């Protein structure tokens, strides 16, 4: 059984068909990429999985269970974390607080216990902190730990957002254009991190990406979309050479 499966999913906004009859499945432990020109519906796929949009047709299964009726916060509880194309961090908080916030789904205390700050709350906080420190070590964020997000450069914010998604301890990670706005060295680092995340932490990744080098380096299978339709699924080289993909990017 695949970890994640989308069957004939589709959504329209008014008269615009943003996504139509798209089916794909993602296997446990895989890095699956989605590519396509602007407006192809790549981010729409993510917003459907995150349940920010309602599906008009089709179904989405995680571990064989449908997630199409869940509320957005329940998606995180099921172990799906995501990043955003232009970063959506908690701007006025420190990097540390941002990463700690991602542990919300692992919270076992009620607000009353928290207001009294019972010993179990302190224990939980210490446990969260240790896990966050692991992520900080993994992504080399030590020097930014106490800095507020609104004083950080964009490249660092992207990494912090990746760290925040990892802090949720997801089984499925959705990365929306992780390399956009990064310089070549940062992109290089990123490709190593994505591989580490996949191999060492065993997290399955779905990634929307334009950078063909990054795609080719980390991803085994790529899905190409254009105008809300699925063009093809295959290895990066196959997809790059596919006549429909060439047509979508370069025209006839």
């Amino acid at each position, binding site marked *: 059984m695949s970890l994640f499966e989308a069957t004939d999913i589709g959504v329209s906004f008014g008269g615009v068909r943003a996504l139509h009859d798209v089916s794909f499945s993602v296997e446990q432990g895989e890095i699956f990429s989605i590519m396509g020109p602007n407006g192809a519906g790549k981010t729409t796929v993510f917003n459907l999985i*995150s349940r*920010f949009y309602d599906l008009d047709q089709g179904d989405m299964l995680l571990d064989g269970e449908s997630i199409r009726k869940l*509320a*957005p*916060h329940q*998606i*995180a*509880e099921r172990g799906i*974390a*995501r990043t*955003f*194309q*232009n*970063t*959506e*961090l*908690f*701007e*006025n*908080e420190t990097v*540390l*607080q941002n990463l*700690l*916030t*991602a*542990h*919300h*789904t692992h*919270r076992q*205390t009620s*607000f009353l216990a*928290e*207001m*009294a*700050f019972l010993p179990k*709350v*302190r224990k*939980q*906080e*210490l446990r*969260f*902190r*240790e896990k966050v*420190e692991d992520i900080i070590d993994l992504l080399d964020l030590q020097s930014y730990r106490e800095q507020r997000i*609104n*004083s950080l450069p*964009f490249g660092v*914010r992207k990494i912090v957002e990746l760290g*925040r998604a990892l802090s*949720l301890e997801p089984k499925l990670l959705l990365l929306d*254009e992780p390399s*956009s*706005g990064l310089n070549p060295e940062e992109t290089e680092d990123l490709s190593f991190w994505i591989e580490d995340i996949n191999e060492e932490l065993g997290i399955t990744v779905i990634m929307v990406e*334009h950078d063909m080098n990054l795609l080719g380096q980390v991803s085994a299978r790529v899905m190409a979309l254009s105008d809300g339709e699925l063009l093809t699924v295959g290895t990066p080289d196959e997809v790059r050479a596919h006549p429909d993909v060439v047509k979508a990017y370069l025209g006839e």
Partner: protein
Amino acid sequence: MRFVLKTNYGQDINHFLHNGQRFWYGLLIAALLLAPFFVDRFYVGELTYLLIWVIAGTGLMLLIGYTGLVSMGHAAFMAIGAYAHAVLFKLGFPFGISLLMAGLVSGFLGAVIGIAALRMTGIYLAVATISFAFIIEKIVGEWTSVTGGHRGFVVPEPVMFGIDFGSDMSFYYLCLGVVIVAVMLVLNLLRSPMGRAMIAVRDSEISAQAMGVNLVETKTLAFTLSAFFTGLAGALYSHKIGMLFPENFTIFMSIKLLILVVVGGIGSMHGIVFGAIFISILPQVIAIVRDFLPTVIAQRRGLEPLVFGSILLLFLIYEPLGLYGRWVKIRAYFTQFPLYRRATFKRQKSYLRTERVH
């Protein structure tokens, strides 16, 4: 400058980072405990008002400063707390019980408003809460069989465990106790997952949801707790003014509470105290200045609201982080002297969505 050597993660969780802070806050509490023995009775009364404003401000700060939901009708919760407490207490409930129940009644109505206002933010929420405050004011005015309407409602003397809290001094200590407990509860919440969830909702609803924060639960809880603390403040306020009228809880009080939060410093617990001091002192200052103004201006009735409003505007434009933000800058100047750079707190350019080419 002080550098704290951190050797375990618990240090980051503690309220006090180092002994210097313990000393100064200890000194502050000692000063507050001893104050009634050294100052005039009039000032003990004024200090009590200040403490009540701090309790109400704690509630409103949680909502505006930490959850990002603007309420311009918090006088309604003061009114609900005040009347609920006065009525229950008169019916013969013990003082502590009726105080707590007043908070709970107010908190419950806060939850109802919170659920109703779930989809509203910003100006729409502000308008909705103003309307709520008007409705409560009207209900209080018209429901004469319970509230006494515009003829007023006499609040009985506060008596708990046979101790009369009617004297200025004992009531001052009661309020001080409530302030300390309320502030501790909120500070604890803010260093726990639920408090972080509220801050997450303030900064980005969409990514809060993606991180597993339940918006309905978080916003409703913020409203409930906010109304609870403000209701508690209202209950204590009722004893302080002795006689309740609907006119005590008008929109002017709501705006005063808003000023407390904004001028004090949005998103800071210190700001509550700064803001409370500010709104307590300002009317006195206006009264003094009035004596020196030409009669034409001094006799105008709208002078006080005008000054309050202008100050709110000036703070929003020139010092959005309020008095606390200003204090942080002054402190930075002295700790870094003579190396302070003027640009230290220059607002960072934020990366808007379209600013970066991809």
